[in-house]
């Protein structure tokens, strides 16, 4: 993470003074965007940089669903399964994605291309069902659209 410190320093400028502890979450986001996950050396470096106790960073990492300490597949498919999406066919989408990718939710395909996850409400209920491809929302998902999306991504197409 050390190469990101100049960026963290710029981030600090808009924070009030004495808010180093607040930077834990933004820094972890940035580290994860950089590396794909948060590694041991990142935790050590961050604790030192922000002067926060190690356990605080471990707690934060373990609590929030978006943060991870291990790498995942190149493309992260996250299907919402909360109420509005389930009412518009999310369960079918999940089932279809499992079948197409040959994995269960929480697993990564053998070729490391896809990780499939189920998530709770993404705040996209009006355009349900929704799935996220990495950071981007793909709304009003249908099985046909999902097939096309997976085919496109498998072929190495754009990841959003």
């Amino acid at each position, binding site marked *: 993470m050390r190469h990101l410190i100049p960026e963290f320093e710029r981030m600090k400028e808009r924070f009030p003074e004495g808010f180093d502890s607040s930077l834990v979450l933004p820094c972890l986001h940035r580290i994860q965007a950089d590396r794909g996950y948060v590694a041991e050396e990142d935790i050590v470096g961050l604790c030192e940089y922000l002067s926060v106790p*190690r356990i605080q960073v*471990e707690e934060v990492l373990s609590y929030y669903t978006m943060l991870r300490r291990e790498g995942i597949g190149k493309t992260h498919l996250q299907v919402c399964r909360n109420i509005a999406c389930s009412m518009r066919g999310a369960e079918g989408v999940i089932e279809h994605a499992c079948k197409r990718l040959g994995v269960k939710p929480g697993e990564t395909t053998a070729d490391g291309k896809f990780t499939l996850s189920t998530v709770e409400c993404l705040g996209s209920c009006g355009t349900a069902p929704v799935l996220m491809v990495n950071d981007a929302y793909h709304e009003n998902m249908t099985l046909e659209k999902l097939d096309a999306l997976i085919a496109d991504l498998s072929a190495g197409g754009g990841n959003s």
Partner: protein
Amino acid sequence: MPAADGMVVFTASDKVKARRKATMEFITLNHPVDCGICDKAGECTLQDYHFEYNGGASVSRDAKTHATKHFDLSDRIVLDNERCIQCTRCVRFTREISKSNGLGMLDRGDHSIVRPSADGSFAKDAYSDNVIDLCPVGALLAKDFLHKARVWYLKATPSVCPGCERGCGVNLWHRKDEWMLRSPRQAARNDGLDRVTPIENPAVNGPWVCNKARDLPKLLGRVRAAGALFKGAPAPLEAAVLEARALIAEAKRPVAVVSSWASNEELAAFKAALGGRLALVAKRDHEPQPGEVVQDDLLIRADKNPNAAGVRAVLGECGTEVPKDADLVLVWGEGFDFRAVPASAKIVFLNAFLAPENGHADVFLPVSIQTERSGHYTNFAGVTSRFERCFALPPGVLHAEDLFGSLVGNGRGA
């Protein structure tokens, strides 16, 4: 909601009772009812509260959830996550009191799990064992006490930790008379301490003690000096006392090296009997050990002896070095460097534990330890605390307090 002026709190309305009963149901929902093999049984807050506020069998029809058992929290403490009711007292202790930030609650919801920080700060926390007392259930247990005894076999004798000049109030736990172990293999444990817990004393230690207090069973359980010696040769106790008295009487420039582990009572007896006769040197019986926290902002003090202040109060200012012209040195207690004794001087040595130096003295007399007598220590801040006797005096051992009167007089005759 915190209490406030003028607030009226209902603690026994029907609604409160119902919610309390329900909350007990929640707490015990996934708590294993393994009280029969749990060391906390008998002093478990959850047992007490369940008895007081619920009392019924579980209404759950679902299997209990599972979590890690026998997790090594440190080399001192074992954690059972199934028993843990996630109160976070231990986590807050390391955050707010000991400030080691050694523990955390990882994950969320009913998967939340207590874990030590990966940097090992909990293992280095000199106050870590307090979380065992804080734990309301049997989730955090001392490895030293694990499966050693049901707590109702034990009694707590109020005492004072001699580990430093703070003099924390402690309960020393040992077997009740009616629960003495009979098998020869185990009988030795009857005279030993099983565990140590703090006694809350706002003037001295608040509700805490450091891990050194927890380790008193080891410190006080060291092998004892079994009998009197003349230059290493076993001697009858009476003869040894008479010999010591004669040596003192014959000496022209006798010196006493006084123990800072002595109680105020022992010091007073010493002063009354021998105070005018011997020059005085104060001794630190114990010094900080490698790896030990020397001093901190919470409790731990650098002087690792309980009664240096008592020595000053009873005997006044003492010397720090044995005079070069001393012809007899009475050494009282551990931690003395015998190289400081002039080569020609006689040595009378009073010690409780087996040590190589015992055999080098002209006269060696075995004396009692703190758990075999009662008395008082005065701590660095001038607070005097009392400790009670736990065990009878072992055969062949003297109380120093009784001994000093016998050391006054002339010659070897009775």
